[in-house]
């Protein structure tokens, strides 16, 4: 859990302070970033469930239960985000600080960037949650639902409603979402928090 949180912190620092920052400013990020708070609490919750299944009710699990009972509603109001405890989140994931995230995929790979107002979850018809690969960029206002697999290095453009599986390095856009490009390097999108997308360049292809 700690190594994963350290990887998250490194990614948050790199994104929030692209030109580097002093130790104090980086330490203050722990208190000023709602996304990091949500990630920390989700990881603690996941760890708590694992421990409770393995050891039952011990002093550690009872203490964690009390901590989470107060910390989760607080994080919910501060960050306006709800991340399911069952989700397996790899180290080095960015969740938006602006919040309004309701996400509960099966797995999120490392290096993934999720912007604000994103919903990821089960389909109302009863299908399971999706799986998000590594180094995925998910823009604001996206909905991803159903038992699908989002490949590595995918870019989901803002406002996409997606219920199909997407291969690696593809770009999806539209409502309902379709694959608009199959070979795309989304590294420049994941470098910073601005989503400066030239939609024309995707439409022409």
């Amino acid at each position, binding site marked *: 859990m700690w190594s994963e949180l350290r990887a998250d912190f490194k990614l948050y620092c790199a994104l929030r302070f692209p030109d580097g920052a002093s130790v104090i400013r980086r330490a203050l990020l722990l208190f000023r970033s709602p996304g990091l708070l949500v990630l920390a609490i989700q990881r603690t919750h996941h760890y708590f469930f694992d421990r409770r299944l393995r050891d039952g009710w011990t002093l550690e699990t009872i203490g964690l239960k009390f901590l989470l009972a107060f910390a989760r509603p607080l994080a*919910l*109001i501060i960050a*306006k985000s*709800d991340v399911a405890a069952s989700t397996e989140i790899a180290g080095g994931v960015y969740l938006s600080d602006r*919040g*309004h995230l*309701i996400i509960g995929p099966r797995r999120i790979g490392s290096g993934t960037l999720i912007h604000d*107002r994103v*919903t990821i979850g089960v389909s*109302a*018809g*009863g299908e399971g949650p999706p799986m998000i690969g590594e180094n995925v960029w998910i823009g604001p*206002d996206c*909905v991803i*639902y159903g038992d699908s697999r989002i490949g590595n290095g995918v870019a989901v453009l803002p*406002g996409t*409603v997606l219920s199909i599986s997407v291969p690696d390095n593809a770009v999806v856009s539209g*409502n*309902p979402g379709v694959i608009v490009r199959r070979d795309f390097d989304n590294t420049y999108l994941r470098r910073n928090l601005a989503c400066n997308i030239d939609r024309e360049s995707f439409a022409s292809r």
Partner: protein
Amino acid sequence: MTSFLRASRADLHRYLERKATSAWGKLWAILVNQGLQAVLIYRFGRLLDSKKKVVPVWPFLAIGWIAYAVIAAVIRRGYGISLSLSADIGEGFYIGHFGGIEIVNCRLREHCSVGQQTIVGCAAQIDGPQIGHNVWIGAHAKVFGPVKVGNHATIAPGARVTKDVPSNALIVGDPGRIVSRRYDNSRILP
């Protein structure tokens, strides 16, 4: 008053899903469901609004309005659920998650469901959307303008409705188009 109690009970029973009917179970449902808290406060506001012509209860109304204003503001800022009193919502209303929900100047009949980031109605319109009973509105859906949505209709996540929708229809996409005219949504309504 009786309509307030009946509507609140119907809302609560949508969340209980036909189980755990003890008093503790009900209290727990109110504590953990942010949507239910918002709906109950909206019902309280509608009760105060309906009693404003009754002069003997005005001192109680003043206290009630202050309490309503404070709690509604906390819910709007904290959870992002804004249920305006200009909206007429039927009993048994279900809000799945919190965040970005705005329901203004519209008419929803009984047993409707909405998801997160949903916008129903439009403040600028004189006549808002008229929505039938047992309608399921998915997350990120938008229903604008003077449209009529039929009973048992289903609006898929992310859909934008700008035209009238017949009963039992399934609407998908932006702008919304009818995918099926005989879609059964009894399975997905909780």
